[in-house]
Structures are given as C-alpha cells and as structure tokens.
C-alpha cells in the first residue's frame, strides 16, 4: 500500500475515531466501576495518612 495522503487521512478519520471512542468508553467504565470505589477512596485518603517512612 502506498503511503498517500488519501490513505493516511482515511485511516486517521476512521480508525482514529474508533480507537478514541473505545478508549473513552473503557476509561469511563474503569473510573466508575462500582467495585473499584473502595480502592479509589483508600488511595485518595492514603495521602493524608501517617507517612512514617518507607516499608522497603
């Protein structure tokens, strides 16, 4: 396949769109996945916990 302007722009306009949509759906699902809520809360609060030196 020749690397022409038409070919690259068609690729960018089709697959570029698909991958961005798939990616955004995936990320939204990850961010709002119910069972991950606890882990996220813990991460957000862990910042304020006592930071008494590295464990290893």
């Amino acid at each position, binding site marked *: 396949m020749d690397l022409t*302007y038409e070919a690259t*722009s068609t690729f960018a*306009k089709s697959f570029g769109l698909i991958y*961005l949509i798939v*990616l*955004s759906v995936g*990320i*939204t699902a*990850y*961010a*709002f996945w119910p069972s991950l*809520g606890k*882990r*996220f*809360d*813990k*991460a*957000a*609060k*862990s*910042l*304020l916990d*006592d*930071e*008494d*030196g*590295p*464990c*290893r």
Partner: protein
Amino acid sequence: MMTRLMATERQGALILSGLVALAGLILAAAGRGDPMGVHGWITLVFAGGVLLIALRALDAPEPTEDRLASYYDDPTKVGILLALFWAVVGMGMGVWVAAQLAWPELRFDAPWSSFGRLRPVHTSGVIFGFGGNALIATSFHVMQRTSRARLAGHLSPWFVLLGFNLFCLVAASGYLMGVTQSKEYAEPEWYADIWLVIVWVVYFVLYMRTLARRNEPHIYVANWYYLAFILVVAMLHIVNNLAVPASFGAAKSYSAFAGVQDAMTQWWYGHNAVAFFLTAGFLGMLYYFLPKRAERPIYSYRLSILSFWGIVFFYIWAGSHHLHYTALPQWVQTLGMTFSVMLLVPSWASAGNALMTLNGAWHKVRDDATLRFMMLAAVFYGLSTFEGSFMAVRAVNSLSHYTDWTVGHVHAGAMGWVALISFGSIYAVVPLLWRKEAMYSWKLVESHFWLALAGTVIYVFAMWNSGITQGLMWRTYTESGTLAYSFTETLVAMRPYYIARVIGGALFLAGAVIGAYNVYMTIRVAGHQAPQIDYPTGSEANEPAVPAAE
C-alpha cells in the same frame, strides 16, 4: 551529602562524572573554534566539579544510616534550590527582554544581549530551569511518599538532577552565543539533545523502579501525571529533534523533516510541551500538595482519573491549532481546533476538582498563603485553559495569532498556573524536607503571594490590550482597500502596554526573589522540628536495604 552514599556509590559517581568530563573534552576538541567547543569546556568544568566533590569524599567511612527507615531527600533539596536559582535568573531575563521592547537602548549594542538571543534564555530558564527542576524535585518527593518506598537508587537521582541542569546550562549559554535550531522550546542543538535523552531515560527508569517497590496497592493519581510528563516529553523530544548534524565538529544541524511536515512536527512538540511539561507534571504537583496542605482528600478521585485520560489523549492532537491558515491541510487544522475545544472538559474537571477539594477548607485558604498559592494556581489553570480552547478556534485565532494576546495567554498559564503551583508546593515542602517548624517568615510568603498575583494580573491585562489592539490594527483597511496602519504605528500604540508589562514582570520577579530569600533563611535560621509524620521509624535490620550497585 556525599558521605551519605556508600563507597561503591561514591566510586560510581567518580566514574560517571569522569565519563561526562571525558565527553566534554572530546566535545571541546572536536568543536575547536565553534560554540560547540565552548560547550565542551562548560561540560568539562561542570563534570570536573562533580568529580572533585566525589573524590574528596572517596575515603569517607561507610554510612551507618538505616536506609529502610527514611526517604532519600537530598536530591529533592538540591533540586528545589536549583529551581529557585533558575527562577530568579529566568524571570530576571524576562524582565530585561520586556524592558528592551519598551526601551530598545537597553540592548547595549552587544551581540549576545540582543532580544533574539536573550528571549530563549528567558523561556528555557523559566520552563526548563525553574519548572523542570521544580518538577524533578517534587516528583522525587511525591513518588517516595505515595509509594511509601525510598528512591530506587542513590546515584541515579543525582545523575538525573545534575545532568538536567548541565543541559539547561548548555542551552542557556548556547543561546547567548547564537546557537539555536530555531524551533521554539527545542532550541538546543544536536549534542545537547542527545544528552537530554540519556538523562531522561534514566529518570524514567528511576521512576518506574521506585513505583515497582511501592507498598501501596494503587498508584496514586499524582504519579500518573508525573509519569505522563516523563514518558511523553521523551517521545516529543526525540521525534522533534530528529536532525542530521552538518558536521560532528560544529553546533549546526538540519531537521529530518521539511516544509509543512517540519512545522507540524514542531507544533505537535510545542503544544505538547505545554501539555506534558507545563501541565501534566504540575497537575501531579497539584494532586499531591493541594489535598495534603488542605488536609482533605481530593474531591473526586474518579474525576481525576477521567480527566487524566482526557488530558493525555486530547492534548496530543491539539498542536495543529498553531498552524491555522497555513499550508497544513485544512482538516488537520480543524482536527487540532476540535480537540483543543474538547480539552476544556478534562481541564475544567481538574481545576474544578481542585477547587471543590477546598470546599469546607476556605478558612484555611484565607489564613494560609501557601494554600492560597495553590488555590489561585487552580483558578488560573481554569482561566488559561478556557482561553486556550477559545483561541484555538479558527476565527478567534485569525485575530489573536502572531499578536501579544498569545504572549498574554502563555503568561497567564506560566505565571498564574505553573509558577504559583510551584511556589505553593515549595513553601509546603521546604519546612518538611529540612525538618523545620515552618517557613522563616509567613509575612514574606504573604507578600510574595500578593506580588505574584498583582504581577500576573498587570502582565496579562497589558498583553490582552496590546494584542487585541495590534490584531485589530493589522486587519483595518481603508476605503480604498489598503492597510490603514503601518507596522510602526502599531508599535507606537502598543508601547504603553509594553511598559505596563515590565512593571508586572518586575513585581513577579520581586516575589520570586523574596521567595528565594525566605527559603534560604528557613534553612539557615528557622527552628528545628522533627515532624510527627514523614519521620523515619526504627527498623530491626540495621543495614542498608538498598543494593549498592546502581
């Protein structure tokens, strides 16, 4: 500080600095009679200095410190001091070049002091010197705290920090000698670029290795932003600096790309330098230091994940908005414009998330200038990302592009967002790192805050006025269809704003000088206090936990 390294690490430092000094010698020999030769000598002196420090500590006894029980903060401390040094130098250069525009006789007729050579010293000085050192230093701090693990290695953080500063030094001195690739924010020539790649890869490996030792199941979101900063800057830097040196004995190279491809690559780099150097890394700072200082967890952790991916995947497409009305295909311009407008969503999600975190802690914002720095940074982040999306729209861009409006926009971001979050983080972290009760003077922090705010507002308003005046004068036609104003007339109209800009910049610089003095006095004078938290706990194994070999 060298005595805290083990003997093998000190030997490693000796070998590394010897190798860099040798590289400097080769550069000096190959580049005789060319600015590259001067850079060789600079490298030689810099590495020679490090070598001497390593040599003097070579016979020191092995450290008895228990490496299990504390964070390794020496590189962070040096990084913060270097950031403040570059802040004063870079902002000082900014005030000088701004004054040259209002009073051209301030050029003093030397070649090195012309506007074209001093301006990149200002931009690189503040972006890479100040911003870069602040990012490296705070990333070392944040990655250790959020992972609850000590830095993976004791030599590589020094290599990253000092290597990066050698790059900054070579860059700034090169500009004064007229060395430039003529690519904005990517001016340094090929040998400096290769050096930065080496430094950056070591930085990435260090970050990954520290994260791999983490003692937390989840990697806190601030680390994601720092990692995006490191990874994407490496990618941008390598691609945009693909070039063929004209000879291996001179500071001159030719880009691997030509014409509009070169322009597109440059602005893909340029805009993502804004995105990943000046935004992603500093968002990492915001997501760590703002909740920490406000003593409240981030308002919505889920939102911070969403906005992270939004920022990463939208920004990478936005660069072509710098090339509206050029030879670039129309659809690529439209693509850049569309993504720039979409970027408003994750950007405002981040700014809103930061401000909502402060809900319920507004009394702290009122009382604590350090937290107020961070709050104002989030506000300016929201303002300048809105302005950026707006200016990327083709019709707006036809008025704003090539005018001082762009300069005003950049400074709303760089002063209002990047510098304020950095100063806020520095004020938050300095007492902790040096084990002090508090900053030397809270009144000086307070005056720095108001100087910074006044300076930014004066600067940005001056440039808005100047830029819109300039843009409108450029597009005004007479009835007979000729341009109504000559170029000189636009300069005369803009002069009052140029003077206002010097005043705004000088206020901001004065704040930075006060900040540097305050940090210095904190280290020298402020009372010692061992904090309750962030303090090493005892460990059974009284031996270094980290393997010596790096």
